[in-house]
């Protein structure tokens, strides 16, 4: 199961859009939930007149049987105080479906990086202990960087370290809950800032692909991911000619 965390720059959600759009996944269901702000629109992955008329809502599930892949896309923010119930419901659903592994795509505020994190790759990963046992070796080979822990009481006591994912939304909660529930979960995240986060989404999805090989990775990977039609006009309508 792949799913995004609603996080800084919406990078996780954009990356999931790329996965669904490129792999041409089929919608198989949705979450009827009071935890997310309602929204509705026409099919965001429409490629023609005929398939553009299907309604799409805030939390939908897509399937690719050939790769035994299920993807959850979340399209709106959490309603105040509802993110915990949502996480609980989501994790029970994961357990009840006997889902083998969960990958959460997320992001974290770039401005919160320390001096060392400012250098090198902005991509990070986290694995729950159960998944570490299964794929830890492969991840080591990829030479990926694990998300660093930070001091719980900076300045006062630098020895006690905690996981801190600023701007990551429910990422930390999902991860810590999965650790305690024995769920095999991986978190892939990118440090970024708000703005045009399309390049961040491409980077994150390539990172995912380096591990799981969803599509054949060639030299110029960004051209192989298909942006959905709904990504048009991300920054508003055309400009009035009278402006110039």
């Amino acid at each position, binding site marked *: 199961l792949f799913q995004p*965390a*609603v*996080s*800084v*720059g*919406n990078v996780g959600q954009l990356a999931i859009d790329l996965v669904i759009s490129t792999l041409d996944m089929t919608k198989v269901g949705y979450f009827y939930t*009071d935890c997310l*702000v*309602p*929204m*509705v*629109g*026409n*099919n*965001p992955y*429409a490629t023609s007149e005929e398939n*553009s*008329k*299907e*309604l799409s*809502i*805030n939390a939908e599930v897509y399937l690719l049987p050939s790769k035994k892949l299920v993807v959850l896309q979340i399209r*709106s*923010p*959490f*309603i*105040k*105080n*509802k*993110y915990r119930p949502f996480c609980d419901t989501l994790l029970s659903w994961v357990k009840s479906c006997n889902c083998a592994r969960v990958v959460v795509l997320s992001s974290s*505020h770039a*401005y919160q990086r320390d001096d060392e994190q400012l250098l090198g790759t902005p991509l990070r990963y986290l694995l729950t202990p159960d998944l570490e046992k299964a794929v830890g070796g492969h991840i080591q080979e990829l030479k990926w960087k694990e998300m660093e822990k930070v001091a719980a009481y900076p300045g006062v006591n630098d020895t006690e370290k905690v996981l801190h994912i*600023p*701007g*990551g*939304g*429910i990422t*930390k*909660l999902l991860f810590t809950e999965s650790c305690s529930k024995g769920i095999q979960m991986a978190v892939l995240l990118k440090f970024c800032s*708000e703005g045009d986060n399309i390049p961040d989404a491409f980077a994150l999805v390539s990172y995912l692909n380096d591990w799981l090989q969803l599509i054949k990775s060639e030299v110029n990977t960004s051209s192989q991911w298909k942006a959905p*039609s*709904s*990504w*048009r*006009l*991300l920054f*508003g*309508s*055309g*400009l*009035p*000619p*009278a402006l110039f």
Partner: protein
Amino acid sequence: MATFFGEVVVAPSRSGVDEEEEAREETPEDREIRRELEKKREVDVHWTLKSGATAESSAGEPFLCSKFIVAIGHNAAAFLSSFILDSVCWEVVGVVKLWNEWCRTPNTTNVLPTDSFCLFYRLISDPTVLLCQCSCYVAEDQQFQWLEKVFSCMQKESLQVTILSTCPVADYKTQESTLTLPSPFLKALKTKEFQEHVCCPLLEQPNIVRDLPAA
């Protein structure tokens, strides 16, 4: 986060999870305050289906409804008032009472057009046709409640629901500038099950609808 002027501000997080909120455990006092606030923000639906008698929404059988037209927002509500509703053909059969930071619904069904209210009307000649004027703002956390409480009272087989709403033209995303668009204009969204002819073009991607009409 540093702004262009050099000041450091806390940026609102698009992640929707407040960092402070996340770190702090809820004390019993917090829980009590939250419960009180939730009670205050509850949505109450009252039906007066038989003239004179009030019935709580939870009691009684769901009533038969063939068409349900919901007008959300002042403009849509005004449209119904001006062109559809009159005291001869329509009778008030229900009211929604709610409170949030933006509005409080009045205690009476005798409302002024400038009030924020949510009333249900029934067509006297065909009591299965229901109409709702909702000019009050239903907050995010109340939308699902409104939806569940209102729809739980009706039989949903062969029910046709029409939702009327308005959005600012400036929010509409299109290739050309919205300034040159002939406005106002109509767009529609429909479910697969709606087989009838739609009187206007469908809403193009990437435009979306949110809040109560979406719910």
